[in-house]
């Protein structure tokens, strides 16, 4: 085989493989979107050929509390990320810059919060939350979401801080900036890629979280992941409405992921100071 033919074959195989993978990855999404346009009657009888209808959207968006669920999701996921950033960035700085007793042990302990399966810890947490009055509250969910988001932010941002040579801080101090100005003007821009990508990842994780809100909330506060199960009624299953709820709730994650895709990979894999 000549080299050009070889190259061509390689290209065909590569693109063929990618095409197969993209079908594998995207088909469930596509299927979900198709379902949203089907009426209940056509749900189980048709595949690709059907009469599209917007009834499901109307039903979900106008006749249920859909926007309240979305609002709840935004508040708990956004709040969780905000708390994680506000507390995690200083913690990451401390882990990167200061020497203290049992530093690595504490850092590992924080990471280990992510090890336990949610379902394992959620029952004791349920009892604790009942007693503390945190059950079914924004604060309670935001708090428990720290298990999801805090370790990630601390570990990613810590790596970024470690990559910034401490002399850069010293130089900025000598240049006439106080510590807060040094942080905002010199450190923050350098950790930004890591901070943004890990924060967005945390947001997606928190948004998608199901076990915690299912068991620790669900009456007054219903994030969309939990609320979506409502469309599984006792006797009937409105697949179309469920698909609408799922599709719309998946949108933020997908949009974020697409927007930051490039930065996400770079932010999580590169250091702060490339040179």
């Amino acid at each position, binding site marked *: 085989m000549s080299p050009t033919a070889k190259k061509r074959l390689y290209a065909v195989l590569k693109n063929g493989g990618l095409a197969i993978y993209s079908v594998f990855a995207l088909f469930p999404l596509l299927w979900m979107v198709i379902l949203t346009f089907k009426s209940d009657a056509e749900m189980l009888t048709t595949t690709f050929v059907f009469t599209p209808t917007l009834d499901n959207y109307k039903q979900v968006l106008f006749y249920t509390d859909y926007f309240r669920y979305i609002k709840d999701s935004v508040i708990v996921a956004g709040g969780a990320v905000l708390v994680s950033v506000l507390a995690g960035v200083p913690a990451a700085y401390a882990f990167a810059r200061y020497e203290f007793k049992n530093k690595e042990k504490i850092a590992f302990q924080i990471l280990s919060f992510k090890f336990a399966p949610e379902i394992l810890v959620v029952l004791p947490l349920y009892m604790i939350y009942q007693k503390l009055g945190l059950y079914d509250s924004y604060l309670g969910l935001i708090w428990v979401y720290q298990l999801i988001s805090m370790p990630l932010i601390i570990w990613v941002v810590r790596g970024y801080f470690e990559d910034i*040579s401490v*002399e*850069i801080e*010293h*130089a*900025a*101090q*000598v*240049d*006439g*900036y*106080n510590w807060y*100005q040094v942080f905002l003007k*010199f450190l923050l*821009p*350098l950790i930004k890629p890591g901070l943004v990508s890990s924060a967005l990842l945390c947001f997606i994780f928190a948004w998608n979280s199901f076990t915690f809100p299912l068991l620790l909330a669900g009456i007054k506060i219903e994030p969309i992941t939990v609320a979506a199960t409502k469309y599984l009624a006792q006797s009937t299953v409105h697949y179309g409405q469920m698909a609408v709820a799922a599709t719309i709730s998946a949108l933020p994650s997908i949009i974020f992921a697409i927007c930051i895709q490039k930065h996400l990979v770079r932010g999580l894999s590169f250091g*702060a*100071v*490339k*040179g």
Partner: protein
Amino acid sequence: MAKIELINVSKRFGKTTALKNVTLEIQDKEFFVLFGPAGAGKTTILNNIAGIQIPEEGMVRIGDEVVNQVDPADRNVAMVFENYALYPHMTVYDNIASPLRSPRYKKFKDNKAQNEAYIKEAVHKVAAMMKIDKLLERLPSQLSNGQRQRVALGRALVREPNVFLMDEPLAHLDAKLRNAMRSELKEMQTAFGTTSIYVTHDFMEAMSLANRIAVINLGEIIQVGTSDEIYYMPRNEFVAQLMGDPEINLLECTLVREDGSSLCWAECPEQLIPMPKHEELEERTEGMEQIHVGLRPQNVHYHFEKVPGAFTGNVYSFETIGNKSVLTVQVGDQHLRVIAPNGLPVKLDQEIFVTMEIDRAIFFDAGTTEYIGRFDEAAVKELVAEQAKEA
């Protein structure tokens, strides 16, 4: 512009002591060099003056003010860091402009446009001086090490600080640029008249730049003096070895006294070297048996034929270092480095004779390695005094 004083400064990091009772007084407008081997504590001294580190004990004074409790931002010092410490997310222009934009050193606090106009002028002036005016739009990652170093210098020079602190600012430049920058730095300092403290481990840099040098080892000041004082009257063998390349020869000698009390012979490797009569030296070596004789390589001479008073040895090695060569001669079990011209026709192990200018030698106590004296000490002192008068 200010006088800098360190009084009994000690700095510890955990259990290691980085500085032990360092006392230094740096005069206003002086170009002061901190010189010593790696890990001696030179950078720690700079950091303590800049306020990046706070000493556990002792006092740091800038001008007449004790600054132990003053933040680095308020000390009005400019520092060049060894690893440049450029801000990677800012262009060269913004890096140099950074101190002039800081809340502390802004020229025009209320008028941003005026401030920026001033910055533009100042940055361009410095950039032209540093020959980086074509690089102003680049990021530090797009620069070579030499260029980065010049940006770091530029960032310090753009201000009018009390003191310039420079931590090996020329270490990463290529030889040609280093020489050019060395003379330029000296010129600039003379022109600005700003007190400068300069850290280096290169004795040539130290000698050519400094008004005075402090030799530091293991966190302690070993000796403070002008280049010539330190070169000709090193406080101990360590200083003597550090100053000078090729390194000074140190010979273990036994003093042999004739006529009862007078010092006149020294038994170096199995042969006697006649020493001139010198009463002060005789007094200082009273009761000593062993001394070390320090001889700079330029004060030892080689001969291919036996001359009176010469030592017989063998060629041990011959290396060319630029415009001259170092010939190492083995005499007994001691090695003597001798300066020789390039291309000297010698073969290894060939027999060769050396003579020593004993009147240029520096004598050290064999036990403590401390300086004892030299025959022409009076002349050296006179030279130093004369230099001090000129300055």
